[in-house]
């Protein structure tokens, strides 16, 4: 496996300069490998993991999980419609899932109304969409692998031990 990919799999908290040091490469080589991974469509891009509840100015963002039932099509199955749904800018992620519904969407909006109108005007009016069920997110406890804790567990190891 690409040594840079291994480091990304560990959680990707390192900068490219740090990855270079750990993997024994130059920073240029790390970037080359990232480019290669991009070409192979394995590495799609970076995204920050943010806890916006701590930033008053940004706290207006609203997120929702939306369960969508759709009709599969002859030939294409769920793919054509799923791709169509995922093209909306409001849709952050879109998954085909097993169980009581077909698609699970993570949707972003600047207000409750914006998300609601996306659902009622855009999503549910698409041909093939049978029903939707919207869950607004109230609070985040873990985000992209990071625990959002009120109390951080401190590292209380002794400084020197046998």
């Amino acid at each position, binding site marked *: 496996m690409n040594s840079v990919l291994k480091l990304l799999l560990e959680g990707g908290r390192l900068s490219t300069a740090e990855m270079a040091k750990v993997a024994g490469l130059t920073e240029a080589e790390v970037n080359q490998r990232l480019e290669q991974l991009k070409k192979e469509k394995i590495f799609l891009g970076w995204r920050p993991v943010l806890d916006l509840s701590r930033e008053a100015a940004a706290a207006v963002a609203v997120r929702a999980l939306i369960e969508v039932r759709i009709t599969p099509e002859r030939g294409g199955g769920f793919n054509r419609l799923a791709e169509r749904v995922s093209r909306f800018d409001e849709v952050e992620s879109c998954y085909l899932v097993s169980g009581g519904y077909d698609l699970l969407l993570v949707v972003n909006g600047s207000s409750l109304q914006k998300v609601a109108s996306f659902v009622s005007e855009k999503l549910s009016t698409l041909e093939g969409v049978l029903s939707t069920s919207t869950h607004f997110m109230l609070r985040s406890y873990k985000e992209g692998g990071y625990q959002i804790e009120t109390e951080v567990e401190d590292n209380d190891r002794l400084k020197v*031990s046998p």
Partner: protein
Amino acid sequence: MDTKKFIARHVVDLPKSGIRDFFEIVAKMKDVISLGIGEPDFRTPWHIREAGIYALEKGKTHYTSNLGLIELRRSIAKYVGKNFSVAYRPEDEILVTVGVSEAIDLACRALINPGDKVMFHQPCYVSYHPSVTLTHGIGIPVPTYAKDNFALTAEALIAAWQPGTKLLMLNLPCNPTGGTCSREQLQAIARFAIEKDLIVLSDEIYSELTFDGEHVSIASLPGMKERTIFLHGFSKAFAMTGWRIGFGCGPADLIEAMMKVHQYSMMCASIIAQEAAIEALERGEDAMKQMRDQYHRRRDFIVRRFNEIGLKCHMPRGSFYTFPDVTSTGMAEKDFAVGLLQAERVAVVPGKAFGENGAGFVRACFATSYEQLIVATDRIERYVASLKK
């Protein structure tokens, strides 16, 4: 009143731990990056912690059997059978202890008569020699060398052997050197132990953290199960140092003797830790392997950096320690460690804390985040460069 006069002579004579000395210097300083720590930086995986919480919720607050919970002993038998290829009976060949630390003490107390001799390879874990001294045995350190990657050789054992030797303590992979032995080297050690009729106390606490090739337990070699006490625990592989839980496996007579001491001194290990330990053995493998893979990459990084910096460092095959040679700086290991701490605020442990044979080396532990390892090695580089001027 002179209270000191009441202290037993063999305790007065016990040398102070080199780790303790150094800890006192480091503890007074701020913003130190410590590579002097002998435990994982990871916290116990959550599912194991959760099992401990659940045990408390269920009201598991009582003593257990002296030998330990039978469910845990069954899990241990299964785990050791699968990973070390030795079969132990849960009923009478396994004893759950308060860490490998207690198991070492129990074995020494159960086996050593005053004046019995005990061999152990050195540099070694700090408690081996004192455990022997405290039970009125005589310790015989056997040197291991950087040129052998700190593997213990049968030649060194034969050269150091003395009449009256009863026990051989092994710790492979080794704290502080990361040294291990190949199957062939272990076979030679086994032949030596059989020829000299020794009991082998094999502390395999770092066995899961073997990065290249297989880990072989000496207990699995022909003729060795009957003369080996196999010691293992949860502190390192499962990041459970604070739970204080480990175990010993061996011939029923010896386990019975250790249990006799244990029942009068400790009664049993904490039931909460025992419950969590079952979870670790039954379902902890994935989390353990994730930690091991991270240690593996950190090892490759730090060893490469030490050699780039000009501190000769062998590749430790196991454990989370490196043991670089600092003699190229022209300094003694203690001066190097104190100088590094004062100039760059990086702590490493002087090699002599692990016995006379650690002279010229320091122990640097890589159970620390990449970010810290990068900064620490950059600082060490600057320090070593400053010495050349």
